[in-house]
Each structure stands twice: as C-alpha cells, then as structure tokens.
C-alpha cells in the first residue's frame, strides 16, 4: 500500500483551511500532539505546523499565474528521513505512512536535514520531531462514519482540491485522476520517490479575444438595429 494525498493545483485557492484543520486535529492527537505554539498571542507568533501553504507567481504578465502550493509530508517510498534516524523513532509503516515515535525521538534534527521538502518540524517544547501522520488516527477509526475516515486536510478543503487514497492500487480514484491529469511527484531528481502527487492547472477554455469581442458587438448591434430597419 502507498497511502498518500493528491493535491489539485488547479482548484486550490490558497485559503489555508487544510493547514488549519491539520493543526486543529493533530494538536490534540495522541500520535503527534501537542503541536506547540510559541508566543501565540505575542508579538512574534510561531509554532509547529505539519502542513504549510506557500504561494508562487509563475511567468510574467500577461502570461502569469498564481500557484497556491500546499506542502506536507509526501510519505516517500525511499524516505531518507527514516534511514538516517539513529534511534528508530522515524519509521515507515506497511501502508506507506511515515511516522515519528514521539517516545523514542531525541530531537537530533537529522531527519529534517535529510528531507528535501521541509516536511518535518522540531517541536521546541517537547524536543521531538513532528510531521504529517496522514491522520492515521482518523483513517482507520471505525467509530467514524466511512466518509469521515479521511485526513482532516482533505475533509476541510472547500474546493475539493485534496484527495486521499492508495497510489499502489491502479484502480483507486487517486491513481486514476493522477493518470488522467498528469499528476507528478516533487523533485524526482533526488530519488526519494515521494508518494503524494500534484495535479498541474488545467488548460482553461479560451477567453473571447479582441476580434471575438468586435464580432460579438457587431452582431449585437445588428440585432438591435434590425427591428428599426425593418420598420
């Protein structure tokens, strides 16, 4: 199994709801919580987040586009963060989820150094490394209705830009959509084989150009004028 997230850069509006929902769920999770905040009401509020949304501008006007880019752990198949961990706190499960055993971590930061994506953050209060758990305490919880057994970020997304599923199964929805829309993994050059996939923006339907507008205007004028002419 390769559980992971599929993130649609076409529909993501950069609202940070996924990041906030992630923070809310995981702060009280027994797997990763608490997610400490430093000076939450002070002058320089900061803290641990397992999912961060950055915003990029690609290209120059008029051919420019804003890309909202959510990033959390990509649950790499070849996760160096796991192999460099000296204590065995970082581990990869059979379902593909990479986790940190909070009881074993000694806070050496080496896993964060080994991660090219910035997916791991040290919690200064607990002294341990925190990362996306793919809401492992939601997705297998049989007390939840089946539709709620998904990561908090996926459920919170107002534009349905996030999907959760098994990338190992070619019939799964995430695999199908990835194949249909050219989903890609981040920085394949580095050889981490990240599982999460991103969907590039769709080619939009052509907007009416200047010539189209003139034709439209002429047709409109003609239709307005025609009754007068007929009279």
């Amino acid at each position, binding site marked *: 199994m390769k559980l992971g997230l599929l993130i649609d850069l076409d529909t993501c509006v950069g609202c940070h709801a996924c990041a906030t929902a992630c923070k809310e769920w995981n702060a009280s999770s027994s797997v990763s919580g608490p997610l400490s905040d430093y000076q939450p009401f002070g002058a320089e509020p900061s803290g641990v987040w397992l999912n961060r949304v950055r915003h990029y*501008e690609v290209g120059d006007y008029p*051919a420019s586009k804003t890309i909202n880019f959510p990033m959390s752990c990509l649950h790499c198949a070849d996760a160096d963060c796991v192999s460099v961990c*000296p204590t065995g706190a970082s581990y990869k499960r059979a379902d593909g989820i990479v986790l940190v055993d909070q009881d074993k971590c000694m*806070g050496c930061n080496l896993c964060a150094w080994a991660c090219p994506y910035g997916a791991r953050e040290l919690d200064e209060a607990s002294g341990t490394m925190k990362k996306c758990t793919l809401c492992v305490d939601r997705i297998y919880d049989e007390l939840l209705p089946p539709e709620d057994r998904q990561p908090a970020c996926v459920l919170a997304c107002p534009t349905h830009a996030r999907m959760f599923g098994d990338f190992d199964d070619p019939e799964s929805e995430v695999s199908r959509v990835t194949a249909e829309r050219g989903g890609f993994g981040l920085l394949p050059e580095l*050889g981490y084989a990240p599982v999460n996939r991103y969907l590039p923006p769709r080619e939009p339907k052509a907007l009416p150009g200047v010539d189209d507008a003139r034709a439209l205007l002429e047709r409109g004028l003609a239709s307005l004028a025609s009754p007068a002419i007929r009279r």
Partner: protein
Amino acid sequence: MKPALSIVFFTVASGAGLGLLALLALADLCPVPLLSPAVLPRGIVLALLLVAAGLASSVLHLAKPSNAWRSFARLRTSWLSREAVLAALLFPLAFFYLLVVSFGAAGVRRAVSAIVICLLAWGLLLCTAMIYASLKPIRQWRTAWTPAAYLLLGHWSGALVLLVLAIGYGGEPRIWAWLAAALGVAALVAKLGYWRHGAADRRGKSVLTLEQAIGVPQGVRPPGVSVAQARLFDAGHTQRTFLTDEFIFRLARRHAQALRGAALVLGFVIPLIWLVAGPRHWAAALAVAVLALAGLLAERWLFFADARHTVRLYHGDART
C-alpha cells in the same frame, strides 16, 4: 544551514582528539620509538578529553537528550547511529589501552589494542563526515571531499596537539614536525578541493531550481507558455518557523570570504610556517595549536553556513 555552535565545536574538538589518538596508536605500533614514554599516556588522556568535550557538546545539540541512549538502534542505515556505537566503544577500549600503556607492557596485547584504537578513531571520524556527506538535500556535502577533509583535518589538528606534548616531554621531534607538515598540506588540499567542488557545483548541471521544485516543467505554469520563471509570492507565515531557523541561513559573500581567509591563515598558513621555521618551544607549539583550532572552528562554521538545503527553493531561492 544554521551553523549550530554545539556541532561546530563537537566536530572540531573530537576531530582533533581522534586524530591525536590515531597518531599516538600508530606511533606506538612503530617498531622504532618515535615518542618519549611520557607522551603516550598523557596524549591518550588529552585525546579522550577532547573527544569527551566534543561529545558532550554534541549532546547539547539534542532537543531531548534523555533519549540519546536510544541512538544505537539504526546501525544498519544511520551514520549517526554508527557514530554513537563507536563512541560508546571508544572509551572503555581506550581506557584499557591506557592501562596497558601505563603498565609498560609490550607485546601482542598492546599492539592489538593500538590497532583497535586507531581503527576506532578512523571509524568515528568517517562516521561524523558521512552523516553530512550522505545527505542528498545538501549537494555541497555530497562529495568524497567531505570525508577526506574531515579525516585529514582531524589528523592535522591532532598532529599539532601531539607536537605540544612531544616538544614538552622529549625535545626535538623532527619526524613529527615533518609528518605534521605533510598532514597540514594534505588537509589544505582536501579543504581547497571541497571549496572548489562547491563552487563548481553551483554552476553545474545538478543545480535545482525553484521551477523544478514546484513542477513548472510538469505543467505548473500559465496556459500557453512552455517556459516560465517562478517567484515566491507569499511564504504563508509572518514569523520565523523551524524551517527558516534551521535552513535559511544567509551568509553575505563578504563575510564568507573573510572567514575563509581567517580559516586559511589561522588553520594552515601560520602553523605551516611555524613547522618550517618557528621556535621549538612547547609554549609556541601550544599557541600554534590553539590558533589552528580557532582556524578550524571558522572553517567548520563555514561548512554549515555555506551549505544550501533544497528546502530553500520552496522559500523563494531561485537556485540551490
């Protein structure tokens, strides 16, 4: 990368201690006596003190030192785990060696302990270097120059410390001065090679760009264009984060050059000149060793401050 002082001190101090230990063990193995009998036990103690000070400093780097004992768990894949195991083996075995040496017993037991200690010291130096050299997100470190420099710089600084003892306890150690000079030149070559490699890599084909990081080649771009430049528009946070603290260390080129100069002059030029023409007095040797270690602290600080982690792309660096 953020140059954490605890790690900078650790690698320099334990590097010198391990280099010293390896050189002492090798000298002990040599059939011709190269050191006066007073030097060997004192040298071993000094080396262990340096290594212990370094390791203590490295523990300060941990956010949760109470779990440090668990670090023997991933011997098969983690260089840090290997370093921890070798460090734990070093002290009891080095104490045993110290006892054997102190009681003056020659013979197989002493030779075997000397070989074991020398191999352990080399192993530890290699482990420390490989922790860095094995990290894919930091390309400057991923080169054979990294372990070469760590091994040679450890022996070079160890040799300078050894000279202090050798001069203090036994008069003119000609051969040690030559050996130290040879190590110094080799270490300098390794460090220059590392810097050259870093500069060449920065211009080379393996450079990663912000566009690659966010998938512009895979279609994350405006409609109708095939090539587009990307810029960070908003990092999404208003204050520092763990990632900006740890990875977004910006070093002005001016400061980098000044530090490189200091590392070269203090760490190599002054000690090498002294080796060729300086007064053979233990106080002079001590002053030179201290200056060289200060130079290596600057060199090690730069090793971290100069290294650029891939995650900087996501924070707006155009290339890394």
